Each structure stands twice: as C-alpha cells, then as structure tokens.
C-alpha cells in the first residue's frame, strides 16, 4: 500500500472508494453543520434561556434555527449514497456490525425522526408562546439525539473492523454496546472538527444574509461584526481541539496502522489535512481582527474545509483498508463493477447537478 490513494488499487476498488469518499465528504459537511449547529444553539439557549428577561437571539442563532431542518434533510439525503457504496465495498463487515448492534442500531431512526420534528417545533409559533425555559430543554433533546446518532455510527464503524472472533463473542454474550477506548477520541475528532466546518458555512450565510425588517437593517452592521468575531474564535478553538483529538486518537492506534497512515498511500492526505487546518486558522485569525468576511475569505475557507474533510475521510479509509482482507474484497468489487448501469448514473449525476444549479440560480436571481 505504497501508491497514493486510490491509484494503487484495481480500478473497480478505486472507483468505489473514490465515490464513497466523495459522497461521504458531502454527508460529513452537512452532518457537521447539524451536529455543531444544534450544539451551538443548545449551549447558547442554556445561557440565555434561563434568564428572567428574554434576550434578542444573535444573528448566528437566528440563522441556525432557520436552516437546521434543511441541513438535516440534506445530511440524511447525502448519507444515502455512502450508505450504498459502503455495502459494495465492505458488505460483510457493515452488515455484521448492523446485525450485532440490532435494536441499538435501529434506534437511530426513531431518534432522528424525533430530532427532525423537534427542529421544526423550535421554529413554531407554538413553542414561542410557551414558557421560555422550554426552549433550552428542546435544544438539549435535539443535540442529545444527534450526539447519539453520531456515537452510533462511530460504534458501528469500529465494530465492523473487528475480527470474526470478536463478533462471535459479542453475539454470544448478547452485548448491546460495543465499547472500545477508541470511541471517545474518534468521536471528539468529528465533534470538534464539526465546528470549523459550521463556521465556514456560517461565514457565507452571514455574508449574504440581509435583515428583513427595519430594525434588522439598522443592527445589521454591528451584528455582522460580532458574528464574524464569534465565528473566528469558535473556528480557531475547533481546529486546535481537532488536532489534539487526532493526536490522542493516533496514540491509540496499533503500530501497523500508523505505518499505513504514513505510507505512500495516505501521507499526502495527512499533509493536505494539516495544511488545510493551518490555512483556515490563518484566515480566521485575520477575520477576527478585521471583523468582517469577504467573498475571497469565504472561498478560501470553503475550499480548505472541503480539502480537510476529504483528506480526513481518506485517512479514515486507510485505517480500514489496513484492517480488512483486501484480496477477497477486491474480487467482490470486480464482480460488482461488471454489472451495468454506471453510464446511466454518470449521466443523471451530471444532468441533475446542472438542474439543481439552475434552480438555485433562478431563485437567487429572481426579484
């Protein structure tokens, strides 16, 4: 495994890996918005919600309350594609982990349904008219739901990487939770990293958002500056904490796995991720000084956030590839690739992406 990911693999494996990483990155970006966004509002509502006099929500909070339901819909839809490709890439491993976790695994669905409806509830007039202290409780429930779902995906992933003996024991002992020391640092990487993605997306939203009322317009400039400074602080803390969590996680990995991470397969991605974080940190540092975002800063942030997320997903895959029986899997991938239909997928991927872009443009430019 010394050739750069995914070039050293036979083309079917390389193709499925590429599609998996690309679509998982899309899922991750939206999931980050949901996870960090709901945690942010929950945290802020804990501070403000229990105060006797209600305070005006900040620009960031307003944006998050407004956009979280869509982001969740997007995260779930985006999750469908990697869910499909993971079944081609690692069918036995993924199915076995799902089956072993059984009720625990299936429970992520009702939990997500509850969270989805709570996100709509927090936008409703009904909740506005209730006791203000209900709001932080609703947000805590929402963030707990997403935390549980994220935890479950990590647990399922780590369980899928175990040996047949571990699976057999897990089944025989009727275990419900798969506990390993790796779960917490791994989850911390996702959770801490989620905030820097969120801040980059919010930077765009703050940049283009216009107040709709006269009061909004007057307070616009002051609000924006405050928002940018807050985003900068949070993003820089997020990058530092993600790096810390990554180091802790690295110390828990076996030596062979660390060797793979620094092999020709993945070290360039390590470098990409690291340089992505450094550039983001520098941009946020600058924004914290000037207190306003620009198109250029947002483009740099978006590009580096995508680059870092993609690179982390490749590293995540490198760890998995070092633990599975690649020979057997490659045969299965070759068989799967012999089935027709790729052309239709590629065609509609392009056509539907163009239609999406055209619709968004039409709405954005409509008076």
């Amino acid at each position: 495994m010394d050739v750069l990911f995914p070039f050293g693999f036979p083309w079917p494996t390389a193709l499925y890996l590429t599609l998996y990483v690309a679509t998982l990155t899309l899922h991750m970006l939206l999931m980050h918005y949901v996870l960090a966004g709901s945690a942010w509002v929950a945290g802020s509502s804990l501070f403000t919600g229990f105060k006797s006099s209600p305070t005006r929500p900040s620009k960031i909070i307003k944006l998050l309350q407004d956009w979280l339901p869509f982001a969740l819909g997007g995260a779930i839809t985006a999750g469908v594609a990697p869910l499909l490709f993971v079944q081609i890439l690692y069918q036995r491993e993924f199915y076995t982990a799902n089956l072993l976790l059984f009720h625990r695994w299936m429970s992520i669905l009702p939990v997500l349904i509850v969270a989805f409806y709570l996100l709509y509830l927090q936008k409703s007039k009904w909740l506005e008219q209730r006791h203000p202290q209900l709001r932080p409780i609703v947000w805590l429930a929402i963030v707990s739901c997403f935390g549980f779902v994220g935890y479950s995906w990590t647990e399922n992933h780590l369980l899928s990487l175990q040996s047949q003996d571990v699976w057999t024991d897990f089944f025989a002992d009727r275990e419900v939770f798969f506990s390993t020391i790796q779960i917490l640092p791994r989850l911390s990487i996702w959770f801490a990293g989620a905030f820097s993605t969120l801040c980059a997306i919010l930077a765009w939203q703050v940049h283009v958002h216009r107040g709709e009322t006269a009061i909004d317009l007057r307070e616009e400039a002051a609000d924006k500056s405050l928002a940018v400074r807050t985003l900068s602080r949070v993003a820089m803390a997020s990058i530092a904490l993600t790096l810390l969590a990554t180091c802790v996680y690295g110390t828990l990995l076996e030596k062979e796995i660390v060797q793979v991470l620094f092999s020709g397969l993945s070290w360039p991605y390590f470098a990409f991720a690291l340089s992505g974080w450094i550039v983001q940190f520098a941009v946020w540092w600058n924004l914290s000084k000037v207190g306003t975002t620009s198109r250029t800063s947002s483009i740099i942030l978006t590009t580096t956030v995508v680059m870092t997320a993609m690179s982390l997903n490749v590293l995540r895959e490198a760890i998995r590839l070092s633990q599975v029986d690649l020979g057997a899997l490659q045969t299965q991938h070759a068989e799967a690739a012999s089935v027709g239909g790729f052309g239709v997928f590629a065609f509609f991927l392009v056509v539907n992406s163009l239609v999406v872009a055209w619709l968004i443009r039409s709405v954005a430019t409509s008076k």
Partner: protein
Amino acid sequence: MFVLVRFLFERSLVNAFEYYPLHDFGPLMKGLVIGGLGIFHVFLAQFAIGGGMLMCYFQWLGQSGRDRLGVMRRFVDDYFKYLVLISFVMGALTGVGMWFTSIQISPRTIGLMVHEFHWLWATEWTFFCLEVVAGYTFFRYGKRLPDPLRLKLLVAYSTAAWFSLFWINGILSWQLTPGTWTESRDVWDGFFNPSFWPSLFFRTIVCMVIAALAACVVINTMPLPSEVRRRLIFHASHFLLPMVLMPVLGVWFVAVLPADSRQWVLGGSVAITLFMNVAVGASSLIAGYAVIGLYWQRLTINGATATLLLVLAFGATAGGEFVREGVRKPFTVRQTLYSNSMTPTQITQFRETGSVTHDPYPLLNADRYPNDQVRLGAKVFRLQCSICHTEHGVNGLVHLAGTWTDSQRRMNIAKLQHTKNFMPPFAGPPAEVEALVQWLDWLVNHEPSEWPVSDNPEVRQQIAKWLEEASDY
C-alpha cells in the same frame, strides 16, 4: 453462453455464502416486521410523489387563468407544508429504515439486490438530491416567487419524486418477475422486466389517489368559504379519475405473473386471495365515491369522510403490498434466491456439507436445549426457517406441525417444497432433517430437560431417500 453466465454467477454466490448473526424476533414473524414498515414507507412515499404532481396541477390552474376564486396559490403553499412535515421527514427516514430493516431481516437478499442494482440505486440518489433541493427551495422561498418559477420548482420536485418511483419499481418488480435476466444477467433485462410497466402505471395512479385524498383532508382544515372549498375539492377529484384504469392494469399485472404466483392470487392461497380482495374492495369503494360522488355529482366531502377514504387507501396499499410480497414465495428473487436467501446451488452444496456446519454464531440460549441434536435442530431452524416461521408465535411451527407424527414431519421437511410450494427445498443432509424433527418434537412436548438422541440408521436412510426424491429444484 447464458449457461456459462449463470454458472459463474451461481459460483460467485456459493463462494460468497456469508453467515450473519441472526436474531430472534420472538412471536413476530420477520416478514411482518419488514412488511409493516414497508407499507408505511410506501404509503408516505406515494403521498410525496402524488403530492408533487397535484401541486403542479393546482399551480398551473392558478397561473393559467382558471383560478376564478384566487385560492390556488394559497392552497399549494398550505399543502406543501404538510408534504414537507410528513413526507420529507417520515418518508425519508422510513426509506433509510427500509434499508436497515432489510439488512436485519435478510442481509443476503439485500446484498444481492445492491450487487445487481447499485448503479440504479445511485441514480435514484441523484433524483433524491434534486427532490430535496427543489422541495426545500419551494418551501422556503415559494411564497415570494413569481408563478412561472414556482411551477418550474414544482415540476422539478415532482419529476424527481416520480423518477425515484421509476427506479425502485424496476428493482422491486425484478424480484417477482426477473424475466430474461435469469438467463442473461443483464441489468436492463432485469430492470425492464415483465411486471415493470403495469406496476409502474398502477403505482403512479395510487400516488395520485393518495395525494388527492390527502388534499381533501387538508382543504377541510383550511378556513375557507364553502364555495371555495367545493371548487378545490372538485379539482382534487380529477386526480382520482385515473382509478378507472386500475382494473385493466390489475389484470395486466396478474397476467404477467408466473403461473404459480397467479394461482395464489386466484384462490390458491387463502391469505393472499383475501388480501387481494381487501385491496380490490377498498379501491373500488374509493373509486365509486370519487367518480360518482365527487366528480359526477360534484358533491363536497367533509374532513371525516376524506380521512376515512385515506384510511381505506392505506388499507388498499397494505393489501397490495402484502400480495406483492406474498406471491414471490418461495423466492425473494424468483428462481435465484429462496426466501431464506439460499440459491439452488447452495442448497445442493448444503445437502452435502450441512447448512450450519460452518455457522460461526452460537445459539444464544444453548443451555435451554437438552442435547446437541436438539441444538443442531434449533440452529437449522434459525438459518433455514426463521425468516417465515416462529416457534410459537405468528406462523409458529408448533401450531403448524405440532399434530404431525415424527415420520410425517421427517417426510414433510425432507420434501419441503412439495409439502407446500410456498416453501424452499430443505438445504441439509438427513442428520439436519432429523435434528429439526427432534427439536420440533421437543418443543411440542413442552421442552423437557431430558430428551433422547435419535440415531436410527434406517430412519436416516429413509430421510435420504425422501431428500433424493425432492431434488427437483
């Protein structure tokens, strides 16, 4: 050439027989679990698809000068809210739920489906993305957009939603009537299979019906003058009219079914015929009310009646889905994979090697059983029978075979596909048949702590003979 393709395909499946940790759902039959969620999901998804089409129609009425009362825009906006709250949330998540449940119930079946159709599923995903973007954009900005752009968004939304039906319909109908795919293994032969078109047209009409009935419920929740309400309901009833085509499509669908499946619908299986009648009966009631009452006589409909009709439509969907699942038996993919996810070649192989010899997952409650033979029987039950049977619950073996004598059980299990052609052939050597018989007998006798081992060579020989006689699969 075809024989070679088939041989290679079967070989790859034999080599790939994966043992998974299978769970016991207690008194609940596994098929019912997936069926229950499936019906719910299908109903919501069809609402989303039909809802999109209905809103296009109302938006078009509104902007083409046919909206004398000026209410269409408002109705579309109100209706869309329900669509987002119900189908974007529950529809999307029950969809993911279908995937997860399929893995829990029958991992090898969903594995084969993913293997064969992943590019079409990936194509469907591109339509999901379009659907979500168009839908949410309309939801957020629709109110302030000009009419032509609203219509564009709605057309994009409903086209994407309908195409998701198009793709999944090909995959589901392939399970029932794979057609020439069984020879060629060509993805398009499988996709455009004999029941593809009747099923697609039928489902499209069902989508329109559900959307129209849901619209009648929504219209009744809006504070509108009765004249406006009557007008909206009249327009919604147009979406119920295609129901008159349902009998023709139904006959077309039944005509393309394989002969054995057709015979079950037409009385061969009481349960399937009964569910078929529920679906037909409920649909006829809705169609009668819609065509004669709502369209012809231009009656209005109140919220309670509209809800009742919607519940009837749910009943019809449930009946239809049950029939679709039921007539596939004993296969999950006709002529390829039996209900217990084994191929004919795997069955032949397991008759030699034993079906659970290499199963790495132990019984969860091994101490419950009195000896190894009964334990083996319990493992065979788990692998081969538990997808459709329970011990004492729904379709419980103790109820079904409790009164049989031991030799009756031996013959009926060894010749399983002849005992009832719903069932797959038995996939194991005589020792596994006997173990299953002993396990069953032990259960019927209230699970005593002591149980003798049955090892009579003559009995084994007789079972081997019966298995031999039942090797026509």
